[in-house]
């Protein structure tokens, strides 16, 4: 079947579908499925727009609301994951996935579905070590910290996905698995994006969580976005068992939706002709959701997932045949994803913009139905209860969040003044150095003067061997409780911090292109390092995105 893959959409649904239609006409024919790798921006209204982590100036409604209202319809079944530019309150309503509009399906925090027999999995968000071991404690209204932490990948999702044993055909992540760049034309990548060099050579670019999943799942295809560059790689895994053929993964990252950019790819992917041509739940994944239901954590406290270390009575949550049969019974042997989309929020009306639209923490009827059928907990129901009990939505006991730049403002849900939100998003990357129409905001806070680190060796081969450190992360790792200070990509970068606001609209105060990091400007001011290689080896936590 023909599958189209899109990189960062940034709400440009019209353009994606129009381009897809043109590609269908120019190519071998109609496409069956569109996969979008995040930054989808399913913004329904002004309240959703406020929950998107972009500087206020770049908050644009874009076109999704028309699909939500029914004015337009997605011409092809669309499945997407979340990135770091999302209507987080909207996606939060669907932690286990659901329809955001007719024919447009969100996979959830993590999820696996099937279409024509093809198993499609995905994990939403981007990696940030500081929040990785926390529960899902955020809820609207978000503050300047939770508006970002809400989309940070959590260990529980990786843990659930690692319970899967059956082969996965396609996997989606927004940020790249760490190290994947060594399996493609790295030289060309660095030619296109020279400011990746340090991170690529230090093997710090990308998500270690995604890398862990790549090693475990070994899907046939892995699609990503986030870094706004097209990059293909071909990775041959180690055979898990002797006698077994080693699997390989074809990785493809795509650009964002702009003219002359590689944001779309049409692929021929094998499928099962006898499998139904509607979206189905995946029985193994549903079973894992049930087995791990007791692991739901809605606090901000750091925690480790169960493992066989003598501290846990259970550490294997994989789906047994018996458990899968039980789930099948619960679904009456009907795995079709029900067509139960409904409009639950007011839709943007351009003729009547609402500047004071109320932000509500909703319980989605789709999630209610799903949880009831499967017998699992809606995270948002738990959050509501916790909120009632503690009146501490968005706060947590162990305040080791050194990056919290919340000045203590009272974030009323009616607060439409977004100027207090930092215009500098440490999760953002300024990637597009070649685009004259884009500017990137570079923070003036940092005054570091950090010499660039030259690679120790520079081979002519396309697959450069010149980096100082390779991380091969073990399958189960423990983070110490004092792991709070995340490394700064800025340690080796140029001054300032880059912000990429999406939609190709970025502001530059100085023509410096660098990868942002997770640090707030205040932190980076304190860091002045000379030998980057050493610190790169120590501070390996963060993604640069």
């Amino acid at each position, binding site marked *: 079947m023909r599958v189209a893959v899109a990189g960062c959409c940034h709400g440009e649904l019209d353009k994606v579908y129009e381009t897809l239609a043109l*590609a269908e006409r120019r190519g071998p024919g109609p496409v069956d499925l569109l996969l979008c790798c995040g930054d989808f921006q399913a913004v329904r209204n002004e309240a959703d727009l406020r929950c998107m982590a972009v500087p206020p100036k770049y908050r644009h409604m874009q076109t999704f609301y028309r699909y939500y209202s029914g004015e337009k*319809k997605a011409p092809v079944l669309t499945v997407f994951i979340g990135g770091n530019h999302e209507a987080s309150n909207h996606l939060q309503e669907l932690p286990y996935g659901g329809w955001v509009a007719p024919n447009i399906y969100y996979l959830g925090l993590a999820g696996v579905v099937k279409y024509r027999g093809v198993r499609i999995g995905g994990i939403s968000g981007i990696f940030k070590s500081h929040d990785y071991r926390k529960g899902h404690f955020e809820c609207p209204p978000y503050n300047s910290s939770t508006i970002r932490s809400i989309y940070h990948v959590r260990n529980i999702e990786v843990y659930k996905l690692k319970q899967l044993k059956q082969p996965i055909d396609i996997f989606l992540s927004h940020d790249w698995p760490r190290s994947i760049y060594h399996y493609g034309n790295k030289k060309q990548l660095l030619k296109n994006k020279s400011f990746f060099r340090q991170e690529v050579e230090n*093997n710090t670019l990308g998500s270690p969580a995604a890398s862990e999943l790549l090693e475990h799942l070994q899907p046939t295809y892995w699609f990503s976005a986030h870094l706004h560059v097209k990059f293909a790689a071909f990775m041959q895994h180690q055979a898990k068992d002797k006698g077994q*053929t080693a699997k390989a*993964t074809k990785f*493809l990252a795509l650009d964002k939706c702009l003219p002359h950019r590689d944001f779309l790819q049409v692929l021929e992917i094998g*499928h099962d002709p006898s499998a139904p041509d509607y979206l189905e739940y995946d029985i193994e994944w549903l079973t894992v959701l049930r087995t791990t239901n007791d692991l739901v954590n809605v606090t901000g406290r750091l925690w480790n997932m169960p493992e066989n270390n003598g501290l846990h009575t259970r550490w294997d949550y994989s789906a047994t045949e018996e458990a899968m049969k039980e789930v099948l019974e619960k679904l009456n042997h009907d795995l079709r994803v029900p067509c139960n989309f409904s409009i639950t929020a007011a839709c943007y009306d351009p003729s009547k913009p609402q500047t004071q639209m109320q932000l509500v923490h909703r319980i989605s009827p789709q999630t*209610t139905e799903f949880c009831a059928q499967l017998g699992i907990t809606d995270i948002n129901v738990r959050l509501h209860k916790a909120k009632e009990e503690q009146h501490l939505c968005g706060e947590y006991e162990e305040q080791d969040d050194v990056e919290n730049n919340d000045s203590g403002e009272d974030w009323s849900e009616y607060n439409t003044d977004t100027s207090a939100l930092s215009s500098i998003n440490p999760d953002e990357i300024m990637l597009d150095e070649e685009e004259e129409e884009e500017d990137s905001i570079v923070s003036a806070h940092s005054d570091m003067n950090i010499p660039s680190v030259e690679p120790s060796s520079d081979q002519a081969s396309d697959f450069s061997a010149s980096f100082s450190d390779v991380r091969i992360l073990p399958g189960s790792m423990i983070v110490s409780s004092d*792991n709070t200070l995340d490394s700064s990509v800025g340690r080796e970068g140029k001054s300032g911090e880059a912000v990429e606001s999406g939609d190709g609209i970025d502001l530059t105060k100085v023509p410096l292109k660098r990868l942002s990091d997770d640090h707030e400007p205040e932190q980076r001011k304190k860091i002045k390092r000379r030998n980057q290689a050493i610190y790169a080896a120590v501070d390996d936590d963060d993604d640069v995105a």
Partner: protein
Amino acid sequence: MHRQNFRPPTSPYPSPGGGGWGSGSSCRGTQGGGGPRPPSPRDGYGSPHHTPPYGPRSRPYGSNHSPRHGGSFPGGRFGSPSPGGYPGSYSKSPAGSQQQFGYSPGQQQTHPQGSPRTSTPFGSGRGREKRISNELESYFKPSMLEDPWAGLEPVSVVDISQQYSNTQTFTGKKGRYFC
């Protein structure tokens, strides 16, 4: 807000395949006093020409998308069909969206002799369509249809890990791992 008694409204439209959508034109949720919206095709999801609830487009050619087995790419459960080689069918885009931007390659908009019927401060309707067409062309790249892995050979994780001998995952603080 917990909707205990929520039932998705049923679609007013017939639902082929037996799995109709809950939404319909009657379901406008909490919208209050919204302005009129243009009608939208509401014949289910997927292709408007043949209406499964959602999913793929209709295909006049039925069998040429069978998976090919024994491809050179190991690990694919259904084989790895090579790109291209399909006779393909011409546009299956929904008519509605086509009309929205008016792009239709190979088809020329014809005007009667004389002045164009539509005239805008930005030029004639034909000029506007051409501008839209040019804009759309700027989004499309032929490489979108080409094999992105062409010329790439698989690289073994073993080779990469051997090239870079430092497999130490931390060099300082104890326990700086991820779980």
